[in-house]
């Protein structure tokens, strides 16, 4: 087999890792009861969010605490713009005229959410991508704080502190599957592209990368904007999953959980992002069930609220015992046969 064919097969296998996981979860979910199925759909949308996070954090090595801002903006926009006209006038009287009088379909709202997520990320990224390390973390956290604050009180663009509801619930299991696959494909395409590889080089050794002529700022801004688009898109999926959204749903808790999913799975690989999200979502579901009583050989009933504790401890344990995450930052690879090394 030629080296070129081998490389192409390797690439396909790499993408198959996350892709198969996503499809598997969707297939299993489609065979469960309606109540259960929501959890599977939620897991898939979580994966989409974490993949968006990974596109920036995994490739650049810079931590962003603010990405849920883009999810929030995408969710609220996609939600507001798809609510049926009459109800919208009634429920959201102070809405800006453009938003009040426009209603589009769910598919279009996803595209709009992605576009707005990208635009917001670009605006935020232009000043912020000069920062790294802790200042970057704090600055992106500040963006999250601003987004939360504005969404909560500015009723010209949303419901303010109230719940936004009456959003069409169009994220079926296959929409969730497809949407997450699209996110994974975009992420994969980016990390294989020249830009993606250049950014990864800056992660290992920024000094050397600069010396090699890579424009660190530009590459980071590109990744940030792309991940903003994916995050906005995932936000659209999210709001169409539940048919409602509140500011608290897209703030600190979601920030922490998605970040932890990424780190647990393995911050530096797409497989890690996908696996971490699906695994932790699954664990969360199981623990919630256990709070109602579940049979696993013996009857297990946890006190209400225990699930969060167990989840937190699990996350801390993984981080302490295996800091590079479950995948160790690696993608799926076919095992290689060892060829003997010829001595010269």
């Amino acid at each position, binding site marked *: 087999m030629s080296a070129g064919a081998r490389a192409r097969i390797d690439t396909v296998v790499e993408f198959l890792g996350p892709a198969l996981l996503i499809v598997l979860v969707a297939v299993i979910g489609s065979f469960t009861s309606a109540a259960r199925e929501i959890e599977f759909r939620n897991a898939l949308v979580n994966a989409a969010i974490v993949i968006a996070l990974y596109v920036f*954090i995994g490739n650049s090595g810079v*931590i962003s605490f603010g990405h849920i801002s883009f999810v929030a903006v995408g969710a609220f926009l996609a939600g507001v713009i798809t609510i049926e006209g009459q109800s919208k006038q009634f429920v959201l009287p102070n809405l800006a005229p453009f938003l009040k009088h426009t209603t589009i379909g769910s598919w279009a709202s996803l595209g709009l959410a992605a576009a707005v997520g990208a635009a917001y990320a670009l605006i935020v990224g232009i000043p912020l991508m000069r920062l790294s390390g802790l200042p970057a973390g704090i600055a992106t956290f500040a*963006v999250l704080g601003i987004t939360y604050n504005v969404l909560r009180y500015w009723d010209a663009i949303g419901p303010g502190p109230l719940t936004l509801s009456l959003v069409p619930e169009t994220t079926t299991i296959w929409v969730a599957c497809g949407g997450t696959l699209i996110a994974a494909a975009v992420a994969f395409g980016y990390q294989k592209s020249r830009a993606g590889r250049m950014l990864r080089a800056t992660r290992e050794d920024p000094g050397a990368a600069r010396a090699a002529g890579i424009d660190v700022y530009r590459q980071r801004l590109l990744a940030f904007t792309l991940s903003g688009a994916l995050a906005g898109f995932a936000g659209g999926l999210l709001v169409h999953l539940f048919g409602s959204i509140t500011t608290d749903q897209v703030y600190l808790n979601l920030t922490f959980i998605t970040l932890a999913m990424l780190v647990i799975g393995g911050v530096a690989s797409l497989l890690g992002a996908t696996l971490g999200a699906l695994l932790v979502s699954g664990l969360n579901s199981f623990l919630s069930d256990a709070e109602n009583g579940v049979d696993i050989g013996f009857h297990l009933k946890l006190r209400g609220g225990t699930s*969060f504790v167990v989840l*937190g401890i699990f996350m801390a344990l993984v981080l302490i015992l295996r800091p590079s995450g479950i995948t160790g930052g690696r993608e799926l690879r076919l095992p290689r046969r060892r060829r003997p090394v010829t001595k010269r």
Partner: protein
Amino acid sequence: MTDVQAIIDAIALGAVYALVAVGIGLVFGVMRLINFAYGELITAGGFTLWWLRDQPAAVAILACFAVVIALSLAMERVAFRPLRRASPATMLVATFAISFTLQSIYLLIFGPRGNPVSTLSGLQGAVNIGSLHIRWITFVSLGCGAALLLGTAFILDRTNIGLHMRAAATDFRTSRILGVRANRVIAFAFLISGFLAASVSVLLTVEDQLVTPDYGVSITILALIGVVVGGLDRLWSATLGGFAMGFATSLFGDLLPAGSRVYLPSIVFGAVILVLILRPPGLFAPSRRPVERM
């Protein structure tokens, strides 16, 4: 409320924030670790005070200090020691995880509704000085804040362990080569930082009596932002940043017109971003210094 009164209140709140900043800054200095779970120490103190609400104030306060310091040392030993070699990203998320876990434990034990603390509620009373109407707690906050800050400075400057801590914060590796015991220095940092957290919980619960599972979160986040904005590399610039944050939050809260007051967080966060972009080492930091790692 007069402007002078607003300023005095702002200084008092700034003092409390400064204590949080020192707590965070001390641990960062020796471990290069930002402890997001610091707020949980403050919450633990608050819950301890509520748990012992029927006991005399002295007993409750003593227990508060004991519990918080024990929790701080336990945090270091169980969670942070294994993380000493991890990357900054992992450490950050891990402290986040511990914060989340502790909050969930509090939720499990104490429930979501707030528990009222009345330990030093006498301090809510006020005294009139001229045209000013100042609450006792304001005096106590100022006094305790100043005393604790001076005490910490004394320990750092005049004692052996303080010298070791300052050396470790500057260059951990060389300090160890000279014989400075890493574990001891770090544990001591957590001890002082726990002491300060307990003090903050006692002072805070006088005015903010309802202790919820996320009681300590907002002050910690704001103080942390203040620390980074003030300048993380030196303890005094970090403290000044924390103080400035408390001062600004209180003052703007009092001086902003009612309608735009809800956007106060955005204004504060916006200012933070501005400072970080224009002067990343921090507002009060001296010239750029390289930060030594362990």
